[in-house]
């Protein structure tokens, strides 16, 4: 019984990190109704930034987070101008295809350079022991950092001029334009933030689990599950969705082999989509 409880707590810790990544996905959807199919590849980019920087410069894994955030931001702005700008206002099919094609390019470069070998970043953080159970320090630290970054994002969206502009554009782009908000720039910045969150959550996940160039697809699917649980376009919901997914993973982990979790999560995803097409935790549309 206690073992299950420990597994659930560990699941919740990891779930917070999933939630952070999904906030990026949901932010982009909320602002411009575009699903960013490069999400998984950008998470992998974060993982590889972590691997390369710790390996080459001997940096502490956590010192890699600021460069991952900044690099992700600029990658996101680039992504906006390459793949998304011309797709705004066109059928969803087109933006899906265009972000998908960037994803292909990234995965293609990744597999050509690194192959599909497994990479691992060793992190030594003392764990927290309670009774017979030890919670890995890396998991606790990753969860805390994810929560802090999510809180900073919330403050940014609600208390800065640019953050308020992003929310205004999400609510009604024409009206935002009327009050002289430079909407194109705001859209580009939102994609930048969204990708930065993907990269930083990727780097955090890289401190927890080993990864390959192709890991992104699985995490991207988790991201979809989380956003659908939380309601697409709702960052706070995404964090709650992440916790819910972590809870589920923790609950099934003692009973089912790890390789089945994707099947279970996908089944859940379909059921939630059918039963609650607007998400479980979503209050209203445009809740950004």
């Amino acid at each position, binding site marked *: 019984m206690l073992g299950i409880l420990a597994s659930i707590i560990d699941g919740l810790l990891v779930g917070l990190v999933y939630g952070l990544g999904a906030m990026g996905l949901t932010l982009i959807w909320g602002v411009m109704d575009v*699903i960013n199919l490069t999400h998984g590849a950008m998470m992998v980019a974060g993982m590889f930034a972590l691997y390369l920087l710790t390996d080459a410069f001997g940096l502490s894994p956590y010192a890699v987070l600021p460069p991952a955030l900044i690099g992700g931001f600029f990658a996101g702005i680039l992504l906006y101008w390459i793949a998304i700008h011309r797709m705004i206002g066109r059928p969803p099919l087109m933006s899906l295809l265009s972000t998908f094609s960037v994803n292909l390019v990234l995965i293609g470069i990744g597999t050509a350079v690194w192959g599909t070998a497994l990479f691992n970043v060793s992190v030594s953080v003392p764990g927290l022991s309670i009774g017979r159970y030890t919670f890995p320090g890396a998991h606790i630290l990753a969860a805390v950092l994810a929560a802090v970054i999510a809180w900073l994002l919330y403050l940014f969206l609600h208390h800065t001029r640019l953050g308020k502009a992003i929310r205004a554009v999400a609510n009604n782009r024409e009206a935002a334009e009327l009050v002289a908000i430079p909407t194109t720039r705001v859209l580009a910045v939102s994609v930048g933030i969204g990708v930065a969150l993907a990269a930083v959550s990727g780097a955090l996940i890289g401190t927890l689990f080993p990864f390959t160039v192709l890991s992104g697809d699985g995490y991207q699917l988790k991201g979809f599950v989380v956003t659908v649980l939380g309601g697409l376009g709702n960052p706070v919901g995404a964090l709650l969705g992440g916790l819910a997914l972590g809870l589920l993973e923790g609950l099934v982990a003692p009973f089912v082999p790890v390789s089945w979790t994707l099947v279970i999560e996908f089944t859940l995803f379909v059921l939630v989509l059918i039963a609650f097409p607007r998400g479980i935790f979503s209050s209203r549309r445009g809740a950004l």
Partner: protein
Amino acid sequence: MLRRPFFWIITAVVAIFAILPVLGNNVDLRESLIIAALYITLASNLNLMLGYAGYINFGSIVFFGLGGYICVWLVSAQRWPLDASLLTAGACVSILALVFGLGILRLRGAFFALATIGINEAVQAFVENFGPWGGSSGIYLSQTIFDPLGGAAQALWAIYFLMVLVMGLSLYLSYAIKASKFGMGLLAIGQNENVAAILGVPTPLYKALVYSASAFLPAIAGGLYFLKSSFIQPSDAFDLTLSTEVIVIVMLGGQGTVTGVALGAYLYEDLRGYLLTSETFSHFQLVVAGVLLLLIVQFFPGGLMGFIYRQFPRTQKVLE
């Protein structure tokens, strides 16, 4: 149907595919044409969803892979004859797609796309864990299964002709649907789903039906392909490269057109042949496919047929 010129164009293409390699018993040509036929089959069935109904299906490779698995399993473990296995594989996958489609296709646009990405991951994860199908190591077929056909060499020819037949049926199906009331409904959904629903198109039913219809022939093609290689494993059956290539083909040829998709498949097969043999590009196949797709989506959303229609408006009357 029989009086339309386009029907005879399809028939001529199928006949050329069937006759060319037989002249001079050209096995190399047969091997490259069977891949072209496979591409055309997969692409024209994806086109039913993507081009007609305007719904992107990122998981169309699932039909191919599952069809391959069901067929290979029936042949190897259940000792079923080849023809019955192929048809059963097609029927099973089609029924699964209908059941899944009825649930998931009530969702609109982007949500449906997410679900199709998920189904790819989930089915692959399922197959990798599924004991009777050999898990991640897959299933091997012994050559004795080809004995009723008179040995492996004869069987490869039989498989080739069947693949060409499946390709022909895919093209006829695309054409027949486009010319029917059902096809009109789908095209209306592709243009504007709300308006289509108001005009009385039963949108969820039509979407589920076309999703299921687009599963049948790719599943049989999967069965044929993996019978030919006598071996199936998850990474081949649910190959990321193949599934993305099919999307590139549909967009390259021109979504929503029958001719364009076949033309795109043929051109892409040529390009791929070049990429695979080139020193520099053989590792960058996905990158090239991605860049090509990005350029098409951004600058030429009509694809090749869009270009041809604009340059030669008269072709619109003949080429569908």
